[in-house]
């Protein structure tokens, strides 16, 4: 069984986001970039399945600019066998990304495609479901547990009401939640080894997909700031303020 894992390069989750002064976007120059956190869970799960002898190959794919190669390389360092970078200029919408991934799926013929449930930059939460629609494959979104049973997967999904379990046939798409597993750190020897693993580079424009934007970003602004509050010195003062000043209890 072959597993394709899609990974995205995003601004590191610890970075305080700053909006550009001209309101065209957020500042990305000289800002620390990392793998989108739930994509790390997706890679980890694929590697674990391979280590359990249930998969033969894990391929990491990223869509992005040249530097997204680092994100693919990191996936190789934690256990993916080979990498693919689909090179693009600028930011693509999830619809375009899912169309590009569809081309890779047609070429590589994986049995499963894993990715994070949501990217923490645009917060869209679309790509996995869109790819699943384009391929007409089953989708298991927000997965917090995956069990492989023959040609099927039993997946526990995190939903607003609690947990839901579904069974999906292979081939399938799974989007991963942060609680699916604990992503490992790459060891130094594995980082060195990853440098020798192949990364195939493909220009997005060679895949015959229309990736032109359908959504115009008119402006990006700072959200309204909350006005600074006060520190209270005791619980009694807190309760008195909530009762008499804020009038919420």
């Amino acid at each position: 069984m072959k597993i394709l894992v899609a990974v995205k390069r995003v601004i590191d989750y610890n970075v305080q986001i700053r909006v550009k002064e001209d309101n065209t976007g957020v500042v990305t120059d000289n800002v620390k970039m990392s793998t989108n956190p739930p994509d790390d869970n997706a890679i980890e799960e694929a590697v674990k399945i391979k280590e359990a002898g249930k998969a033969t190959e894990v391929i990491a794919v990223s869509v992005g600019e040249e530097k997204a190669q680092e994100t693919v390389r990191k996936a190789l360092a934690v256990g993916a066998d080979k990498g693919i970078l689909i090179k693009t200029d600028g930011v693509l919408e999830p619809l375009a990304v899912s169309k590009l991934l569809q081309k890779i799926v047609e070429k590589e013929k994986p049995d499963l495609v894993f990715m994070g449930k949501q990217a923490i930059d645009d917060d869209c939460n679309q790509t996995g479901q869109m790819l699943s629609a384009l391929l007409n494959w089953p989708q298991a979104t927000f997965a917090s547990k995956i069990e492989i049973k023959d040609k099927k997967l039993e997946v526990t999904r995190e939903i607003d009401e609690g947990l839901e379990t579904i069974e999906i046939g292979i081939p399938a798409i799974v989007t991963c939640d942060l609680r699916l597993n604990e992503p490992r750190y790459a060891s130094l020897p594995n980082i060195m080894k990853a440098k020798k693993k192949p990364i195939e580079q493909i220009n997005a424009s060679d895949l015959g997909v229309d990736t032109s934007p359908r959504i115009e970003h008119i402006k990006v602004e700072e959200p309204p700031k909350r006005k600074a509050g006060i520190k209270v010195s005791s619980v009694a003062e807190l309760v008195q303020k909530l009762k008499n000043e804020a009038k919420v209890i």
Partner: protein
Amino acid sequence: MSVLLIAEHNNQDLKPFTLNAVTAASQMGDDLHALIIGQNCGNATKKLSELPLVKKVIQVEAPHYENFVAENFAPVILKLAENYSHIVCSANTFGKNLMPRIAASLDTSQVSDIIKVISQDTFLRPIYAGNAFATVKSKDSKKCITIRPTSFDPCEVSGGSAPIEKAEASEEFNHTKFIKREEIKSDRPELGTARVVVSGGRGMQSGDNFKLITSLADKLNAAIGASRAAVDAGYIGNDHQVGQTGKVVVPDLYIAVGISGAIQHLAGMKESKVIVAINKDGEAPIFSVADYGLEADLFDAVPQFLDELNKLNTIQK
């Protein structure tokens, strides 16, 4: 052209956020139709038809719709889509799972999680965990939109009498089978709609200590929230998680106990009207959004909080 709202329900009742989604959808066009897909969902359908903003209800029933599997829902919606300029539903796990499947099939670039309708094609949405707001204009002829329910008021629930039309079911998608749903039943107010939310974080130190949160929530008739750290540590279930990848809440009063306030958590609660933070680390980022901050050990402060509340003659419910 008309607007199609996909109702979220449990076959018996409409889910509360359907009302917020109706409000949002009505701002995209006057001719608002609501689609309900389910099994034995007559009661929920009736409630939908009573919403004054809804001009027509379309009901589709079949056994394979009982558990809201997106792969079964999508073909029904795609068949109806040609009549509509906008397809709308809530950006909760139901809508997040379903809408992109529809959008991709329609070759539409979805606009997720909007917090404001600026015009029929222009919307405001938070990005980067709410650390920036983007004004975006959809150039697709058909728009697929998910809305953040807490950013829109619930609509009126009575006085309407929209006609109910039945539409044909589509075939079952055979590669996805629902097995079970584990819902935690509770008498408490729902987290998404509660007037007061009491949340615990890593500072609680154990699942057992969450009893303190429960006692405070009982006293204030509040819902219980949690930070991702508390859920990851197994102190409480995932359905309580507030934040970028959990739920977004906008209560009148949010009490954060032992929560440091990572930006991912702030994304889910910083629009609350009044925020209280109780944390022993005076430098914790949660204090930057708190209206009332108390720098104290929560294991002393929460029992005192209960004592002080007990001294009050009345507490708002």
